[in-house]
């Protein structure tokens, strides 16, 4: 029983990390059709930004978050302005260009911050574990879970309830039409990309204390995040949540029953089958082709 509970929590915490990382990607891909292979590098930038703030200003993790969001969003904005905006008519080419961006970011960070692994402190009150029905649950993972949920709420609010979100949805539906109604679609896309990158940065800041901070840490995230977004259904936030839960839970469950290697393989196989039978994603409307 204990094991079941703590296994459930393990699944949830893997899922919450997936969700954190995938959220920004979902926004960028869902709204702009841009397949951002440099997304993992934005996660990495977030982790490094946190490390920088912590080691130079001595800030603790929580006060860092807002700054990290802004810093990485600015980096994302710069990438959109200099590279991505040339490619809106050629979405598949964004895979190639953003891959180039990713290599550059990785090496730039390696040169600037050194090749060593860096380390981000867990905020003190969150470093222990709390007892829940006889199971020790790491408080930081709980915090990450809550934060992911909050971030989801914020994102939903931004997309559904703000003027910016309305413009974004308009541009997503039909860029030309939206432009005709006076929406500055270029600006909307820049901001969207910046927002998505900022979310990736937050993910980086939050995973840094659980994992290690290294220039190539992002490559492990991007494939998983991409799978989460596609399995969930493009443009569906709810789908993204569900698929992070599904993939996280699947990974944890199989890993416990079998081992981590087979778990990963089985989850990927699951993705293949899911995409094959529901290419529109778990939660997208069926319609006339």
């Amino acid at each position, binding site marked *: 029983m204990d094991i079941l509970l703590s296994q459930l929590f393990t699944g949830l915490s893997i899922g919450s990390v997936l969700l954190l990382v995938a959220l920004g990607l979902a926004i960028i891909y869902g709204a702009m059709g841009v397949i951002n292979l440099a997304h993992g590098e934005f996660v990495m930038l977030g982790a490094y930004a946190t490390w920088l703030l912590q080691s130079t200003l001595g800030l603790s993790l929580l006060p860092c978050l807002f700054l990290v969001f802004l810093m990485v969003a600015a980096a994302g904005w710069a990438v959109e302005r200099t590279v991505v905006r040339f490619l809106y008519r050629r979405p598949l080419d964004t895979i190639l260009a953003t891959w180039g961006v990713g290599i550059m970011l990785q*090496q730039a960070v390696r040169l600037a911050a*050194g*090749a060593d692994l860096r380390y981000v402190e867990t905020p003190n009150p969150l470093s222990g574990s709390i007892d829940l029905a006889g199971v020790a649950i790491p408080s930081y993972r709980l915090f990450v879970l809550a934060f992911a949920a909050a971030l989801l709420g914020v994102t939903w609010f931004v997309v559904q309830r703000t003027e910016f979100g309305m413009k974004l949805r308009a541009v997503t539906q039909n860029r030309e039409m939206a432009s005709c109604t006076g929406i500055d679609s270029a600006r909307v896309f820049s901001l969207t990309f910046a927002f998505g990158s900022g979310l990736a940065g937050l993910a980086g800041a939050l995973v840094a204390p659980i994992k290690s901070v290294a220039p190539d840490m992002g490559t492990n995230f991007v494939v998983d995040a991409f799978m989460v977004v596609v399995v969930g259904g493009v443009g569906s936030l709810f789908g993204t949540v569900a698929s992070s839960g599904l993939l996280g839970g699947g990974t944890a469950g199989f890993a416990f029953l079998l081992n981590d290697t087979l778990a990963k393989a089985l989850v990927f196989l699951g993705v293949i089958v899911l995409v094959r039978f529901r290419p529109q994603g778990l939660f997208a409307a069926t319609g006339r082709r």
Partner: protein
Amino acid sequence: MTLTRRHFLKSAAIAGAAGTAASPQFWIKNSGMAWAAGKEIKVGVLFSLTGTTAVVEKSLHNATLMAIDEINASGGINGMKVVPVIEDPASDPATFAEKANKLVLNDRCATVFGSYTSASRKAVLPVFEKRKNLYWYPTLYEGRECSKSVIYTGAVPNQQQKEFIPWLVRNFGKRFYLVGSNYIYPKEENNVCKILLKELGGEVVGEEYVPLGHSEFGSVLNKFRETKPDVIFSTVVGDSVIALHKQYKAAGFSPDRMPMASLTTSEVEIAAMGGEYAAGHFTSAPYFMGHESAENAAFIEGYQRRFGKDSVTHFVSEAAYFQVHLFRQAVEKLGTGDITPTNIRDAAGGQEIKAPQGRVKVDADTLHCYLWPKIGQAQANGQFKVIQQSADWVKPEPYWAYPGLSCTRDGLKGA
């Protein structure tokens, strides 16, 4: 330190986009050239500066160059300057093979220092064996290799485990959980561990391998919770070490009751996770930064002067450092005309040197090194406290677990 080389290449490879064939230097046939010419001896330095394993390999690269610097500063080898030819194999086995080829065939290096992972060593091996060149490999590894083209300066399983496992059983108990990354090194170490445990009447309660780069240990931790072992025997490598330690502590496990005993956790990984997460866990290795000796003090001082005050040395970078000095001693024994990779190898057999860990010797039969295994306990400040050192240096036995086989001067001898 790379000035000469940069100079040479500026003219050669500026051709850039046109790539290879365009640059005239590539067409020079240099197969007739001697291994050491014009008061210079070229050596290859083959550690990844980019890619996944750059994290560790950069420090090996640094240690190697530092040793070369020291040798040149003290007048070189018999008056010859050691010229490092640096390549970046980018953490990719295929690139390792490619660059090794270039160092051996094109640059005519008399020897190459390189590699961290087993996979990259395996990838370059055919180049050195078929071209009769010499490779110096500083990493601890799984043993079971008897190549006559490689000098191994890292530990093999018998050196790390023979004293460690009994010590663990004595102090913590007989129930071990084995967790490692999913490749040959952890599996082989675990083979040895199981043999030792069996002799001691111990028990393996679980054995688990995680993919390389794995960072979610929740399920593994739950298995620990379920099986309640006395010791977690870890051969997890790379970033995973950090994730494992952090999540281990966060899940409420404590080293007092259930310590992790590792063969792979070094000062590098601890620096990247923060000392508090490692504190209390154990590692067995021939070298710790906290080891007290005059040689080590000088090594650390020189390293930190060059690469920053907060940089750390560890059991692989120490080997990367002293193996270059072993190389110097071997070459010193040879006349200028006799310098060939094979002769360097033969001269290296039996060489002794005072390394930071203590006096080490190249075993002429196996080309592995006699080393000084130590057991260290990680402290909150990121250093290891050496709590036990072997009474004497320990002979390398790459086939320890396979009694029928032994590595000799003429290669592997079966029973």
